[in-house]
């Protein structure tokens, strides 16, 4: 029987008993809707947690630390492997590693002052900062200033001119001299440094989008209810912040003064947002950190990294890379890695439990379909016998029953998928309307992917076929002679 004929025959059969058909599809519709709902909820939440809160693909490698008498002591007795450029190279060689970027923190006190333009008044805060290599974040920089170490010695030539405020002398860029009142010498991004009386470029700064998220959803909301100047603080967007400048004082803060060196004031300029930036602080090109650490804490502080972030090529490579780092290289991973793993596992377990419920619903509806189809075969015994008499083979009859089950599956699957989708939209609407802003609050709780829709229909078909298999074989065993005589 051609697919075309089979389809027409199936449609003829179904059209007769539309009500029974719709009735047997209810279980499938509900089951598929449930399955789709929880699958997309699970992956939606996983997406937020594992892609934004704990970015699992980014492993933060630290020195192994030993807990001695409650206090943390880095290094260990025999001096565990240090995080230097050799380690960075070794990590780059590991299979499954896409990128490696060392991080170095400020090892001296620093503070920041500014914010009048954005917040209405200047504020002073402890400045926590670290440095990473520029080349890792070039794509994420949204300002023409770039994320470069402008404090390093820059060479120049005819085709590679110096940046704003510098001039080329003996193939080296030198800052132009200026005075406080003079605003024409230091062009573009550069400004006239008050104590050096020379042009300087602001230190480019990246911040983690998390920081903005936390500010907007928690700090801003919490302060909104307070009185005074703070209550008028605006919500901030990334666009508003790019280009924001503030002053930093290195070597001196609320906490005290650096052991050596004289404090200095520099301008900083926000050039973009990056997941690779530190969570609660600002990130600058690593060259600045090396120089400042050497100046305020000595040369040794400028050689060792505080941590090395390893980006794996895919989520599948994480386990392998984590193993190589901890077991083979003798380094350890930050606590966040463990947290991410636990969170991921928990989400997976919860998703599995709900999907199990959905599968039970589907199994029950498959049994229901089997029952309905068996009843239908008893009712239609005479008709099936007649079809056999008119030339239907056993396989024609089997395909007729399986064809009806397929239509049931396609219908139940697509209706279920639609119902599931509408439910996710409704839940999202309720969620967005009634649940207050919180950090990382996603626009949607669900992540619905095309494969899930296809899989829904596939699963519906599968369960309908499972339910219809026995009835199909029963139907094909109907003996035409006795069925027609009604015996």
């Amino acid at each position, binding site marked *: *029987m051609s697919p075309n004929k089979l389809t027409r025959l199936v449609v003829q059969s179904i*059209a007769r008993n539309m009500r029974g058909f719709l009735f047997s599809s209810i279980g499938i519709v509900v089951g598929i809707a449930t399955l789709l709902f929880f699958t997309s909820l699970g992956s939606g939440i996983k997406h937020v947690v594992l892609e934004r809160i704990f970015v699992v693909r980014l492993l933060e490698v630290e020195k192994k630390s030993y807990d001695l008498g409650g206090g943390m002591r880095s290094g260990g007795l025999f001096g565990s492997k240090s995080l230097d450029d050799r380690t960075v190279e070794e990590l780059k060689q590991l299979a499954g590693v896409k990128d490696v970027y060392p991080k170095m923190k400020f090892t001296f006190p620093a503070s920041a002052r500014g914010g009048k333009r954005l917040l209405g008044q200047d504020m002073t805060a402890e400045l926590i900062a670290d440095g990473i290599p520029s080349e890792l974040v070039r794509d994420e920089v949204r300002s023409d200033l770039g994320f470069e170490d402008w404090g390093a010695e820059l060479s120049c030539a005819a085709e590679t001119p110096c940046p704003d405020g510098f001039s080329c002398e003996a193939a080296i860029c030198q800052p132009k001299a200026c005075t406080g009142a003079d605003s024409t010498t230091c062009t573009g991004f550069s400004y006239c440094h008050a104590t050096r009386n020379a042009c300087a470029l602001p230190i480019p700064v990246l911040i983690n989008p998390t920081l903005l998220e936390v500010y907007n959803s928690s700090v801003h909301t919490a302060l909104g209810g307070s009185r005074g100047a703070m209550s008028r603080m605006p919500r901030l967007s990334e666009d508003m912040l790019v280009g924001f400048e503030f002053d930093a004082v290195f070597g001196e803060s609320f906490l005290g003064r650096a052991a050596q060196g004289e404090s200095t004031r520099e301008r900083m300029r926000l050039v973009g947002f990056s997941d690779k930036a530190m969570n609660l602080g600002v990130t600058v090109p690593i060259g600045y950190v090396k120089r400042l650490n050497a100046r305020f804490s000595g040369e040794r502080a400028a050689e060792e990294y505080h941590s090395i972030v390893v980006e794996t090529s895919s989520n599948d490579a994480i386990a392998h890379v984590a193993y190589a780092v901890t077991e083979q290289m003798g380094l350890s991973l930050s606590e966040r890695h463990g947290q991410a793993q636990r969170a991921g596992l928990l989400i997976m377990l919860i998703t599995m439990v709900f999907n199990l419920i959905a599968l039970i619903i589907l199994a029950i509806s498959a049994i229901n379909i089997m029952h309905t189809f068996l009843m239908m075969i008893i009712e239609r015994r005479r008709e099936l016998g007649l079809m056999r008499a*008119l*030339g239907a*083979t056993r396989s024609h009859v089997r395909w007729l029953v399986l064809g009806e089950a397929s239509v049931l599956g396609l219908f139940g699957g697509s209706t279920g998928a639609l119902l599931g989708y509408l439910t996710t939209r409704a839940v999202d609407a309720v969620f967005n309307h009634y649940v207050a802003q919180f950090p990382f609050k996603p626009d949607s709780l669900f992540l619905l992917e095309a494969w899930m829709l296809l899989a829904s229909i596939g699963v519906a078909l599968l369960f309908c076929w499972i339910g219809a298999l026995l009835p199909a074989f029963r139907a094909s065993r109907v003996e*035409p002679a006795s069925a027609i005589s009604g015996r």
Partner: protein
Amino acid sequence: MRIVVEGLTKTYGQGEAQAGVLHDLNLVIEPGEFVAIVGTSGSGKTTLLNILGGLDNQYRGQVTIGAHALSGLGERALAGLRNRHFGFVFQSFNLLDHLNAVENVALPDFFATADKADGPRLAPKERALALLERMGLLDKQNERPPRLSGGQKQRLAIARALFNKPSIILCDEPTGSLDRKTGLQIMDLFEELNVNDSITLLVVTHEEYIARMARRVIRLEDGRVVSDTVQEPHRPEPELAIASTALQPATEEAQ
């Protein structure tokens, strides 16, 4: 197609409960014959017809239809034979109530295997309409069986039996649910098919006036042939106008 039955024996049940229904039957039915099978209730008429029509293959002995030994045919081949060479007409019509007249007639098309030897044929719907016209049911083409009279239903069933131009039509009590007048009209149709289209007709009946219209009468008693006679067909009553109108357009299809 010639029908040859040799040593046909049929039993139902097993062991103690075993009951013989047909006992060592031997028959030859030539192509184009019009045979009535008569006998008392329970004598095995339906059982024999089902075996000849390939609806029942649980028997001993040999049944040959044309060149095919039925017991040698697989399930598919048997289904193909039923589809292409046999037409069935039953006492209880066996029409599908959810389909209209045209769809009922064209039902065998779903199970037809494409055969190039058949040459180009009309589309199923056209064929069904031509047969409805021949059966005088053209105005009922969109009607469903529950809205037809008994005679109309049986004519619809005959149209369906004719759909694939069968060589043999097997009828089990085709007039059993009809009154005498309507029964005769149906028999007139059969006779016309037998004469004009040379279709072999096997009609099971226990009504004497039906049996008298056949040229050959086989009488069964307890599963045995007790008589097998050739007779001069005799139509018991004068022709009825309605029957002849149904026969008039019977031309193209017969060629």
